[in-house]
């Protein structure tokens, strides 16, 4: 139950900048996901919020109070690390109770708190077992219970689902969301899997190599990526990119993507550069027969490969020596070499600057 404000935080290790001027605000009782590939600085940021690491420059505020110099123990923050360590010689009950024992809480109160949190996380039947008698998913729940039992204002989770089998991960995603909602504390969760962000979080902070690229609700950021990298990080499979250049003809302006011309005269004001990168999400690619004929771009392509995953298909195609990936929400089996006409709506086309990857505009 705390509003977190991070103000211009930077941190270097051995002259390597791990966090570069990071600023953001996380609202009280919200669930925010820090999303970025390995090496984007997620863990360092969480450690700074927890108070186990201090920033080189910049400040951290909890509810307007500067806590940058406040010791971890006085911040009332709980953290679950990626390689969550349970005490192997302690039963689950004692593992969960351990932070309360350190706080010297009385036994009755501890018992009540542990039982409450055990109920929420569905581990009541495991309280008398040792960690090595539990499955990965059960252990993860115990680690989360131990973090939540403190009733901390802020709960930080570093890749809580990464080490779990996918089937457990699938269940944990929806479970975590329910649990967090019931607890009403502020939650920040770091992950490299966009599915976690979609399934669990309200807000997403996209990071890359120590920089904060964009923040907003998950849907907002997915729909309006400020940068080609953001589109790529939020998309599974990754976003498709095509080179494009501007051509003037009879006072009209065209964007040339290979031999495809798109009239962009009405964007004259925004298009100041010569070269662009066009981004298209894999789920914006359709078979041409499924789309109207107007305001679409058609690409006559050859199939490289189809990957059918249960009820969905990922189709790899080649268009003018360029490999594109299509996400198709049904089963579709095509043979390598098959000729297909793939299309996307002009309105699903993102135009990024070739120079710095910034979003120039989304075609309207």
């Amino acid at each position: 139950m705390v509003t977190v404000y991070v103000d211009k935080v930077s941190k270097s290790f051995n002259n390597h900048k791990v966090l570069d001027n990071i600023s953001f605000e996380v609202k009280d009782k919200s669930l925010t996901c820090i999303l970025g590939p390995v090496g984007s600085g997620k863990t360092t940021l969480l450690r700074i919020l927890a108070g186990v690491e201090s920033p080189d420059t910049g400040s951290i505020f909890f509810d307007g109070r500067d806590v940058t110099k406040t010791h971890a123990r006085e911040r009332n923050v709980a953290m679950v690390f990626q390689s969550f360590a349970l005490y192997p010689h302690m039963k689950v009950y004692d593992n969960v109770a351990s932070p309360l024992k350190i706080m010297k809480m009385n036994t009755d109160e501890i018992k009540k708190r542990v039982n409450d949190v055990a109920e929420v996380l569905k581990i009541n039947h495991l309280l008398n077992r040792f960690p090595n008698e539990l499955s990965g998913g059960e252990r993860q729940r115990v680690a989360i219970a131990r973090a939540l039992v403190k009733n901390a204002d802020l709960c930080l989770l570093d890749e809580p689902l990464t080490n779990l089998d996918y089937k457990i991960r699938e269940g944990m995603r929806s479970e975590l969301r329910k649990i967090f909602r019931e607890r009403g504390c502020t939650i920040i969760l770091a992950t490299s899997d966009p599915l976690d962000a979609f399934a669990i979080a309200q807000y997403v902070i996209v990071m890359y190599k120590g920089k904060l690229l964009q923040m907003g609700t998950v849907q907002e950021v997915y729909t309006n990526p400020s940068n080609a990298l953001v589109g790529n990080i939020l998309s599974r499979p990754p976003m498709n990119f095509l080179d494009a250049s501007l051509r003037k003809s009879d006072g009209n302006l065209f964007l040339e993507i290979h031999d495809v011309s798109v009239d962009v005269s009405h964007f004259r004001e925004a298009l100041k550069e010569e070269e662009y990168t066009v981004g298209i999400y894999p789920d914006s690619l359709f078979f041409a027969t499924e789309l109207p004929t107007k305001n679409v771009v058609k690409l006559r392509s050859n199939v490289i490969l189809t990957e059918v995953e249960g009820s969905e298909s990922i189709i790899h195609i080649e268009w003018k020596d360029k490999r594109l990936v299509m996400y198709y929400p049904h089963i579709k089996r095509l043979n390598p070499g098959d000729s297909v006409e793939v299309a996307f709506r002009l309105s699903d086309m993102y135009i990024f600057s070739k120079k710095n990857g910034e979003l120039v505009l989304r075609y309207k």
Partner: protein
Amino acid sequence: MVRVTLEKIRHVYPGNVEAVKDVNITFDITLNSLLGPSGCGKTTLMKIIAGLLNPTEGRVYFDNEDVTSLSPQARNIAMVFQFPIVYDMSVYDNIAFPLMVRKVPTQEIRKKVLEVAGLFGLKNVLTMNAYKLDLSAKQRVAICRALVRNPNVFILDEPFTNIDPESRLALRAKLKEIQRGFNQTMIFVTHDQSEALTLSNMIAIMKDGRILQYATPEEIYENPENTFVAYFIGMPAMNLLSCSLEKGMLKLGELSFDVSNIRNILEPHGSEFIFGIRAEHIELSKVPLSSDEIPMKCVLVENLGPIKVLYLEGNGISLKVKTKVDDIVEGNTVYIKILKNKIRIFKKTGERLV
């Protein structure tokens, strides 16, 4: 390339831990996956095929030859592990190594190395020391080294687990692409259903030391042999609901389905069954389109990017439904229709009946 047959394989580790229980299977000459949760005995089974472990009971055959007592070398198997193994030498030498040991002529080695390195995008780094590569590239080197030597069987034990998600997708696609050209017996061990479903031509599903089903990905998805396979394959898992048979009607919470046409199949098995339907085999609308649609309340929306999973409750049952419709929020009432031909019925003990 050989067909690998396991006959009555059982393996007990010291301490009386039975890791593999009575496995009988023949892996085809194609890309096979061995899929199962952590601790189901996958790796033990692979070690038995590779000859790294002698089974407590049972025989291993390569085609018709009994290889149970043969050494790993004599079996001519290539293996790629979870952690890529590369040696402190150039990428070229790493890949060429097994051929040099076999004294293959230099020209031929060169041809083969360039061929596989090209497939895996390693042509530009052939002179680099393999230690300097990132994990994904190291694993590609390890796969290339296994591919150059035409092994009898090619085993990959969770080869993508430690590779970042983006490269993992790319590598998975690559492996599938090249597999066709090689016509090898590959066994790909994984706990990740999407890897198994997308990559392989045949999947063996393993649980608690037993193989539960060996079939094509489509068959496993459409017709799971039992409730574990139905749960384990698919995201989300197949909806599995307890139901009972009363006078030719299947009662499911407050709903009932006419099953008089299959009554004779069900009745010998008592009155309690499990009703299975996949989340995408339930049609959904915001307004009732016909009288047989069932109203349900949406209690949770799980966003999976392009697709949503809705958790529905009502009529005494809970269901998950997969949809592209993206304007349904928690608390809405929706109307569903269960596709009759997609219903699967299992015995109370888990085996599929219909």
